[in-house]
């Protein structure tokens, strides 16, 4: 099962490698991992998308909690939450494709953020499945380059991960 885990950790050098090292040493999957400082510069917030049986996920959460630099861990998938990911796609956009690409970007509420005579760079935000759908929807030969941030997640309503 896919899980999205959020954690707060000390914004110390090496903290990221402790988490990454844990996943590789114990053979856990990482689908994506994002990290950046929070409004409190001494804390970083990380979102990890992983998958595994219930037992494996339980171990992942326990092992993350065990890392000395980790302050708090929350398995977002245990409750209602929101996920967003940002994708930048550079597509070929000339001739009849140009109009089509613009139309697709609009349908997916994407923004065209860079334009040349022959290309568009489209920014799409949403849950991972929406980004997948966008990729599916456009002609694969038109795709020149894609870059995705990996998911960020947050609990809904009063579900707050804070110190």
């Amino acid at each position, binding site marked *: 099962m896919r899980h999205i885990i959020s954690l707060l950790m*000390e914004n110390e050098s090496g903290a990221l490698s402790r988490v990454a*090292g844990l996943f590789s040493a114990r053979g856990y999957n990482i689908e994506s991992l994002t990290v950046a400082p929070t409004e409190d510069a001494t804390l970083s917030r990380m979102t990890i998308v992983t998958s595994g049986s219930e*037992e494996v996920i339980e*171990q992942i959460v326990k092992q993350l909690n065990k890392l*000395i630099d980790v302050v708090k861990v929350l398995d977002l998938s245990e409750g209602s939450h929101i996920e967003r990911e940002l994708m930048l796609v550079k597509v070929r956009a000339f001739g009849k494709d140009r109009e089509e690409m613009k139309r697709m970007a609009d349908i997916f509420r994407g923004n065209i953020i860079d334009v040349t005579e022959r290309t568009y760079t489209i920014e799409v935000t949403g849950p991972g499945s929406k980004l997948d759908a966008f990729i599916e929807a456009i002609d694969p030969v038109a795709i020149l380059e894609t870059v995705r941030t990996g998911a960020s997640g947050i609990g809904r309503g009063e579900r707050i991960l804070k110190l």
Partner: protein
Amino acid sequence: MTGAEIMVRCLMDEGVELVFGYPGGAVLNIYDAIFKQDGFKHILVRHEQAAVHAADGYARSTGKVGVALVTSGPGLTNAVTGIATAYMDSIPLVIISGQVSTPAIGQDAFQEVDAVGITRPCVKHNFLVKDVKNLALTLKKAFYIASTGRPGPVLVDIPKDVTAHLAVYAYPETVTMRSYSAVSKGHSGQIKKAAQMLLDAERPMIYSGGGVILSNASRQLVELVRLLNHPCTNTLMGLGAYPATDRQFVGMLGMHGTYEANMAMQHCDVLLAVGARFDDRVIGSTEHFARESRRIIHIDIDPSSIAKRVKVDVPIVGDVAAVLDEMIKLIKAGQGGKNAVALAAWWTQIEAWRARDCLKFDRESAVIKPQYVVEQLWNVTQGDAYVTTDVGQHQMWAAQFYKFDQPRRWITSGGLGTMGFGLPAALGVQLAHPGKQVACVTGESSIQMCIQELSTCLQYHAPIKVVNLNNRYMGMVRQWQEFFYGNRYAESYMDSLPDFVKLAEAYGHVGMKIEHPGDVEGALREAFALKDRLVFMDFITDQTENVFPMVPNGAGISEMILAEEL
């Protein structure tokens, strides 16, 4: 004060008595500061691996934090085996390593290695101190983290320039960290549930491990086991937590555990696991273990030890001593005894298993049986020695035949299984306990991995008794090759062995070679009578003896190979 002086003062204020170390360029400032102080004693080992093992032996036998000091680069890499050994067995250590100066970090400087990176997977935590102002607090944190919760080694890497920079010294009295706190009390509701389950059990089993020793909870364990009249087994790491000479003790369990302990483990209806982690060498195949239904109570301070390999019905996260105190109170006040008949029948069953006498060996043999040597060691030392070991068959025979009645007397590398551990660990133990009997039970292969420490033992007057069970084989490897590889003994013989008697003498010690069973006891008595000398006893033992019982790798815990079946 300089960083080096601050470091030295921190160790003094932390109450450190012994530092095991080896100098080098990156730690010269530190050594200069050590030269000028007399708050603690520095023990100069002959190899950094041994510095860590010695600090580890000190820690295991005293319960205090062991301290080792090594230089950057090769000093640190040599220490890694020792650090990983301590990590696997949850031993509290603080390892201080020198590092190249901060501006040189990342430049492939002379003797630079990424100490924090290399040790990250085998430490509880590690630090690189980049600013002398953080040095004292970092060392305080290191001791705090190493010794609380589930203990473990903590590395503090200090660049050379930091040891020269100046700062005002202030050692914090206490430390709090928002990202780390150690639980102690267990959940009362869970403890209550567990107490009732234990009282109602018909076929109970108490399985205790290294956590009981680490928690200094031997007294509580004994009280609980006696109160309930349940059988008790110890893991390799837990030996001594429950007295081995007591009737309720059924021996060690696991791959080389006793028949009765493994059968009771498999067939019990309520299992209390205390400070033990269901290691693969303990319960064998988890599928086989799960075939019999039983309810499991698991007490452990580390939540990640619980439900890691087996499903648990009543998890209790907490310190063994605190949890057992609470449990004992409830049991004393509780209603039990309804199960007296069932419990009596269970004991009858256990006695029947015990009657198979699974540890029997040939007592008429003309060559020395290794089991007999350990038995006589126990006899001659009246069960009162500290015993360290290396890794292999001799380690298992020491575990099976030396009946430990007290905790912290049995010092062995269980989790990593590090050959070379025994002698330096014995050095640490002996220096922590002057005047006490310390034996190192070893094999001719293992002892050669840290043999250079015989020199350190001479320098610091450590009158260790080395019991070398010399079978001219890497016996444990040979045993697996005999059982599982069609007797193809690939590279498991020991050729060109040194003359251990001369070798001991060359290092300034007493050497003895013992070749006949009739001489075993006398030699041991003679050796232990030499109270201020290290004596190296080279026992020429049966080459083909095997360790029984044995649970083959991956088999079920009750699927043992017993001696008589071969």
